């Protein structure tokens, strides 16, 4: 059963109305600000890619509620294992935007989490982060910590062996790990109906004797509610957030080759930001002017962030060699010197 608190028009369902009553005003406003900022950020990234300021980029437009709502339910001590399409999660938990921009600019420094964070660098090989999240949850359980580990992944990831292996381990050892699937309809060009013969991702949980939720992923309230509840269980839970990426798979992809404009239009009408804005406006939480003013501030911050990243000076030769091993092995010193010699004579153009 699909859990839904907020309808596309911005009206609350009965369950939604009860949940809304439990929220503090700060939470309501945070969710709104996060959704808006994340959309602004994501659109800026697409623009910067077009302008050649960053590399290939995987947009999240349409998936903001799934990312913001889930990440907002997390605790600072939770382990987060993102895929490459989790900029909204990063933003919500407080990863600096300079780091995210750096990552998409091919700068390894962007992978380093701020002190105290258990935010793992983005995972590119599909589904490989899932067993790792299981291990991190296992470590927490063994140490008697109360947090959880959450793994983010797409619908395509459910076809990889790692997905099944992770769910099985989590269930066998009864570990506090949330498997958060954003079913955005496609794995690049392959629709979920061709990816899987089971109709939902959530139903896979039954095979592992695991709890599961299927939630409207464009409904920030329902996602927040579900992840909060799942988090409280301290057990393995599979969550399927039904959503849609309204943009391309990446800036290198042409989505018109595999899906119709009509389908996209249907999903634009289910926009996660619009419906929550409607709710907040009708509840008198904010007015349009305040929103516009805040957008201006966020944009300014983002522009500062990209300017900072653009100042990047390649750290050579160390950028290639440090952190590969805990100490640079003796036999790599010669290679390091070679890189230095090219950097010095200017023949490595940066």
């Amino acid at each position, binding site marked *: 059963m699909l859990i839904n608190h907020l309808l596309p028009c911005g009206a609350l369902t009965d369950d939604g109305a009860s949940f809304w009553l439990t929220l503090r005003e700060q939470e309501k406003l945070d969710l709104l600000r996060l959704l808006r900022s994340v959309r602004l950020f994501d659109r800026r990234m697409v623009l910067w890619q077009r302008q050649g300021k960053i*590399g*290939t980029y995987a947009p999240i437009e349409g998936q903001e509620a799934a990312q913001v709502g889930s990440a907002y339910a997390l605790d600072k001590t939770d382990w987060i294992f993102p895929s*490459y399409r989790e900029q909204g999660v990063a933003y919500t938990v407080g990863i600096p935007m300079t780091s995210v921009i750096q*990552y*998409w*600019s*091919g*700068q*390894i420094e962007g992978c380093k989490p701020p002190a105290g964070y258990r935010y793992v660098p*983005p995972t*590119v*090989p*599909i589904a490989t982060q899932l067993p790792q999240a299981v291990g991190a949850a296992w470590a927490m359980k063994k140490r008697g910590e109360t947090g959880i580990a959450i793994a983010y992944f797409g619908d*395509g*990831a459910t*076809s*990889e*062996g*790692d997905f099944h292996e992770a769910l099985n381990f989590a269930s066998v050892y009864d570990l506090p790990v949330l498997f958060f699937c954003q079913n955005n309809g496609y*794995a*690049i*060009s*392959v629709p979920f109906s*061709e*990816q*899987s013969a089971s109709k939902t991702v959530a139903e896979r949980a039954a095979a592992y004797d695991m709890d599961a939720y299927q939630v409207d992923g464009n409904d920030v309230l329902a996602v927040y509610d579900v992840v909060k509840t799942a988090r409280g269980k301290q057990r393995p839970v599979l969550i399927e957030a039904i959503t849609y990426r309204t943009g391309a798979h990446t800036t*290198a*992809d042409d989505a018109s*080759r*595999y899906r119709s404009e009509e389908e996209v239009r249907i999903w634009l009408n289910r926009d996660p930001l619009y419906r929550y804005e409607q709710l907040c406006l009708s509840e008198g939480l904010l007015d349009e002017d305040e929103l516009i003013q805040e957008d201006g501030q966020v944009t300014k911050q983002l522009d500062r962030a990209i300017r900072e990243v653009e100042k*990047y000076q*390649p750290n*050579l*030769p160390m*950028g*290639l*060699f440090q952190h*590969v091993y805990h100490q640079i092995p003796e*036999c*790599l010193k010669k*290679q390091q010197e070679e*890189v230095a010699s*090219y*950097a010095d004579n200017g*023949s*490595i*153009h*940066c």
Partner: protein
Amino acid sequence: MLTMVQSIADAQRVALEADESVLLLGEDIGKNGGVFRATEGLWKQFGSERVIDTPLSEAGIVGSALGLAMGGFKPIVEIQFLSFITPAFEQIVSHVARMRLRSQGTFSNSMVIRAPYGGGIGAPELHSDSTEAYFVHTPGLRVVVPSSPFTAKGLLLGAVECPDPVLFLEPLRLYRTQKEEVPADHYILPIDRAKVIKQGEDVTLIGWGAMISLLKEADQLLLEQDISAEIIDVQSLSPIDEVTIFESVKKTGRAVIVHEAPRTCGVGAEIAARLSEEVIDSLEAPIKRVAGYDVPYPLFALEHAYLPSTDKIVRAVMELVYFQ
């Protein structure tokens, strides 16, 4: 005139037309025509029974391709990027490469596994790695790398005809950089031969794939210094055509091997070892490697520093030419 990626699509079209048992399997190869368009138009022409969009599962793709081969089909599999072949590693090294031996020639393991690979295009993390050595280290499997649109089509069709499994590595950097005349019909180039693409006297430059254009550029710079280089395109990394390499180095007395993969246990190490075993008497200087450093392929802001360059090649050649 075709680019390499077009010639690869063309080769697959010809293969599908020529042989009913040929099947294409991979992620996004159908409706989307492949993320690089290496199967452009084929789904439309041959339908989804022969050009198959699979679930996102490399072990599933390669394992079932082996079963299909055993059952009488000829799979051509696309792995979206070489880095993502790893979930299928088990299937490849434990089964695809060994089924002929283990069934004592009873079951076919004939298939082509195509994968774009290599760096230099500013791609995201884990989209630029050159991991050919893992596979060259796997007996039973052939590894072939084209370096131009013309050789890509002929070698790919050669791989399709080959009774052994072939890993066909497509240098990403060359997908669209060159156009050349490619015959429209079926033609085959031998997949077990290295090619001398330029004759020279003083030094043999040995490479494959995207390195070939780099070697040609380096050769121009060397000519200005009055150094005459012979260039060998290895093409077949496994089994390797050592004779062609030996003959060249016997003549020039000097060898520089160039590859993007990390130096340690790269294919260059194997070539250097064979040269030192077989032609040491002809060598005027040590054998040199210009290779990637022994570090993970960097995120793209530093890839220029990691990759072989004409500077690095020229420097290596100079060291050999002026070796005392």
